[in-house]
C-alpha cells in the first residue's frame, strides 16, 4: 500500500503540473480539493484520466470522483480494489 501511495503522489504531481511539489509534501489523508492542494474541477477530470491511463479504471460519471478523490489514501484504496492493470 505504501508503495502505491507514493506512486500515486508522483503521478498526481505529474498529471496536475504541481511542478514545485515533492511527494512528501502531499499528506496522505489530507483533502485534495478545497483547501488542500487547491485543486478544482479540471483537476478532478484529469484524475479520472490518471486512473484510466495507469490503472485501467473507467469512471463514466464524474460525480463518482467526489468520494474517490477525497484524499490520496481514498484513491489508493479505490485503486487497489478496482484496478485492471
Amino acid at each position, binding site marked *: 500500500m505504501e508503495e502505491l501511495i507514493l506512486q500515486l503522489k508522483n503521478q498526481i504531481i505529474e498529471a496536475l503540473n504541481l511542478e514545485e511539489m515533492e511527494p512528501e509534501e502531499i499528506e496522505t489523508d489530507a483533502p485534495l480539493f478545497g483547501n488542500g492542494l487547491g485543486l*478544482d*474541477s*479540471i483537476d478532478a*477530470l484529469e484524475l*479520472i484520466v490518471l486512473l484510466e*491511463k495507469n490503472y485501467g479504471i473507467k469512471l463514466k460519471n464524474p460525480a463518482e470522483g467526489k468520494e474517490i478523490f477525497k484524499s490520496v489514501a481514498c484513491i489508493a484504496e479505490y485503486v487497489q480494489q478496482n484496478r485492471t492493470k
Partner: protein
Amino acid sequence: MISAISTNITSPLGMTTEQNYQAVKSGCSALTRFEGKWGLQEAFAGSLFTDEQMESMMIDGFTRFESVVLHSVKEALTHTSIDISSSRVVFILSTTKGNVEMLGGERSTDYGQQTTDYGLRSDEAEYPGSAAKLIASALGITTAPIVVCNACISGVAAQILAQRLIDGGVYDYAIVAGAEVQSKFIVSGFQSFKAVTDEICRPFDIERLGLNLGEGAGTIVFGKGEGWNLTSGCIRNDAYHLSSPHPQGEGYYLALQGVLDNTPLATLGVHGTATMYNDQMESKAIQRAGLSNTPLTSLKGYYGHTMGAAGVIETIITMCATEDGVVLGAKGFEEIGVSGKVDISSEERKTDKKAFVKMLSGFGGCNGAVHYQKKEVPSNSPIRGGFVDTKTSVGLKVSHSVKISSKEAFVDGVKLETTAEGKALLKELYKTHINDYIKFYKMDILTRLTFVASELLLKAEGSEPKECEDRAVIIFNRSSSIVADKQYYETIKDDANYFPSPSVFLYTLPNLTTGEIAIRNHFYGETSFYILPEKNQKLMDEIIRVSFQDKKTKSIIAGWIECPDEDNFEAELNIYNQ
C-alpha cells in the same frame, strides 16, 4: 448604427439562410448519433455535413474549413452589390479551432474525397490567420483580415467588432463569417470534459445530459442603413473559473445589462448548450436581469453547438424568426430543469415585437450579447446601450508597458535582471516577481507568458487588485494556441495510448489567456482575443481604439503575445488609458 445587409447560413440543414430557416421552422434537425467516427472510442451525437454536402462545397487547394467559409461568404455576397476589393471593406472570421484537423494529418481519416495537396503550406495552415488570409484573398478582399477567437462567444464578439470598426469610421462594410468543422480533436476534447452526450441534446430540460457539437458557417454582411440594426453589443467576463460558469451568471448578467434598453424584446436568444451548469447559470442571470417573462429562443436542438459559427448562425435564425413574427420552439426541451425563472417552450409562438438579444457564453469566463432592432428608416440618434458615440475618436495613451522575449524582459523600458532563457525565463520571472499564484504551474506556455507580462504590468502600475468592470483585456497574436494544440494532439493521436487530457484541451482556446488575467484580478470587463495573419500595429491600434466605444471601459490591458514554440516567444503588453 450598422445593419445586416445580407446573410447566409451553410449547415447540414441547408445551404442558404432561407433553406435553414424553413428547416428549423418545420422542426428539422441534423443531429445524429455517431459511433466509431474518426476512431473515437466514445459515441457522440452531432450535426455534421454529409460527405455529399461537403463534396459539393470543396474547392481545390482549400481545406474543408476554408471551403465551408468560402461557400457561405460567396452566397451571402450574391445578395449585395458592394465592391469587396475596396479598402473600406474588412473580413472578420469567427472560429475557435479553424483548421485544427490539419494537425498530424488528422484530416485524412474520414473525408476520403479530399485530394488536395496541402504540403506547400502545411507548417502554418493550422493558424487561423493563415486561413483567413487565404479566404480573403480568394474572395478578392484587399484589407487585412481579423480572426476573432473568443471561445464559444466568438460569433457574437465578431459582430461587436464589426459594429465598432464601422461606427468608428475605420471601415464602411464588414463581412463577418463564423465557421467550425468538427474533428477528432474537438470532439475528444469535449468528451474529456464529460460535456458531450451521445443522445440528442435537451436544452434547459430536467433530463439534459450534455451538449452536441455541430458544423456550419454563417455570414452577415454589415453596412450602414435601415433594416435589422445591430444596436448594441457587450462582452463581460465572469472572473470566476476557466471552464465553469459563474453560478449566478455574473458576466452573463453584466453583458446582458450592457445591451438592454426599454425596447420590448420579441425574444432572448440563449446559449442553451444543454450542459447542467450552462443552462442553470443562464436561468439565474436571465431572472436577475428581469427577463423571466421574455420568451427564449434556444437553437442547439437544431444545430448542436457550432462553436465559432454559433453566434452568427443563431443570430441570423433569430432575426428571420422575429421578422416572420414568431419565436421558434426550443427543440429538445420538454420539462423545465433550471432553478431561475425563464419562459421557454417547445412550441412556436407569435410575436409582434421587432427587437431581440442574442447571448453566448464561453470558456475563459467570457460572455457576449448583441441587441438587434428593426429600423425602417436610418436612425441618427446617438448610439445607446453599452456604447457611446464613436465619432469622438479616442486617443491612445499608454501608461505602462512590458516587453518579454525568450531572452530578456523589460518593464517601462528598464531591463529586468534575469539569468534564464526560454520557458525557464518565465518561471524565473514568476518566482522573482510574483510567486503567490500556484495556478501559474498549471498554465500552458502562452498563458504563462501573458500572465507574467500582465503581472509585471500591474505591478508597474502599483494598483491593488480590486473588482472592476471598467478594465478590458485584449490580446492579439499570430499562432493562436499552437503549442497547446500540438500537446493535446499527442494525447489523442495514438489509439493504443488514447487518453485525451482535459487540462491540455482547455488551453487550446487561446482566449484562456484573457480569462486567467480576469480571474486573478477580478476584472469583470471585456476580454477579447484576436488573431492576425501577421503582426500589424496599425490595425491593433485601431481595434484597441474602437474598443473604448464600450462606455464602461476606461482602461485596456492589450498587446501582442506570440508563442510559436515553448522556447521562442515575444510579448508586448501595455496599459492603455482613455
